[in-house]
């Protein structure tokens, strides 16, 4: 490809971003919420959500475990071991839950969406849909966008729950903290809307962005095996950066 077509090093990513935005607008403009579309979205929730469950549950448990281990060790030096549940719940609900689950989601579900769509393109299935007068935007893209925005918040909830279980396992069963104090301290310092609700809002945004980038890189992949491989790599990179940047912006707005 020549440089005239792709622009300079600086403008090429901007153009790519613009094309991705236009692609999203097109997808939105052709959105339909019929019974059939929702059923297909539910099927995609299975592929994106249920298939990511194992990695989410195992990572969640160990994140909770190690987070409690580290904070417990530090807080006992100040005689404030009781605050361990507060630290655990606040850091999980506000930051770690949505961000870590989104990164894992990008690695597990995002890549598989990109590879799937890229492969459809390589094997000319998308063109075949067009020929049959079936809109690939409506049939392929829309259910996956919806599924991302539904599946990731669900995964974040399950991640948070298993991380709490990990934290309780360490603090209560291994270190012998009082479970009533553990819950009472958590309840007294975690606000439902501000902390928990804010985190869930982040999860919806991250899920949507992760799904958007995954379908976009699949859609724009070069229809060769090499192009599909490159697109999956780009999905992970772009989603990780987008999630962390978006996390900063959303956190700044919510504080």
């Amino acid at each position: 490809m020549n440089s005239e077509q792709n622009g300079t090093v600086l403008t090429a990513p901007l153009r790519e971003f613009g094309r991705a935005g236009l692609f999203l607008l097109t997808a939105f403009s052709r959105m339909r919420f019929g019974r059939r579309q929702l059923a297909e979205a539910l099927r995609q929730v299975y592929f994106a959500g249920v298939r990511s469950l194992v990695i989410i549950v195992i990572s969640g448990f160990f994140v909770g475990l190690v987070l409690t281990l580290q904070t417990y060790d530090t807080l006992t030096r100040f005689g404030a071991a009781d605050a361990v549940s507060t630290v655990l719940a606040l850091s999980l609900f506000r930051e770690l839950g949505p961000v870590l689950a989104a990164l894992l989601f990008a690695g597990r579900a995002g890549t598989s969406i990109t590879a799937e769509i890229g492969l459809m393109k390589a094997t000319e299935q998308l063109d075949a849909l067009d020929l049959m007068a079936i809109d690939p935007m409506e049939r392929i893209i829309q259910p996956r966008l919806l599924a991302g925005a539904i599946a990731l918040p669900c995964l974040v909830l399950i991640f948070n729950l298993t991380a709490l279980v990990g934290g309780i396992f360490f603090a209560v069963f291994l270190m012998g903290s009082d479970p009533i104090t553990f819950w009472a301290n958590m309840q007294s310092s975690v606000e439902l809307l501000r902390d928990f609700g804010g985190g869930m809002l982040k999860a919806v945004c991250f899920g949507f962005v992760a799904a958007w980038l995954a379908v976009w890189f699949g859609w724009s992949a070069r229809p060769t095996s090499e192009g599909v491989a490159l697109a999956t790599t780009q999905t992970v990179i772009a989603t990780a950066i987008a999630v962390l940047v978006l996390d900063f912006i959303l956190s700044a707005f919510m504080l």
Partner: protein
Amino acid sequence: MKSSHQIELTAGVFLLLAVAALIFLALHATDRGVVSGESYELQAGFSNVGGLKPRATVSMGGVAIGMVEAIDLDPETFEAKVTMRISSEYDNLPEDTSASILTSGILGDQYIGLEPGGSPEVLADGDRILITSSAMVLEQLIGRYMFNSDSEGEE
């Protein structure tokens, strides 16, 4: 490859699991947490509550027996009016029980410590604890200390 029916069923179970996690987390890990069991209400006036917050623990002899439900300012006496919810298990607190605002640890939150009196009469729902001592305010303590050391120097 699983059948379409199986996939939809699993996806449904997954969504249900997430809703269950949502309800559990919202009800048990946040400030909307449900206080289990029967409880009754007590009130106490303090001239200064310091950093006491709603949902802080109310304890007697180091055992948590309830929590602070609300803190507001009495418009007539300009005292802080603290409403506490005490578990019905402890409905035999003597009438001359005293309440003080204490701090747990260095970084710890403030809580209300109850000290039992000796009266045969017991506190009932909606009663007011009359003997209270306010939170220690660090600035006042420092001020008092400096004032005392000054006057000692003069003597």
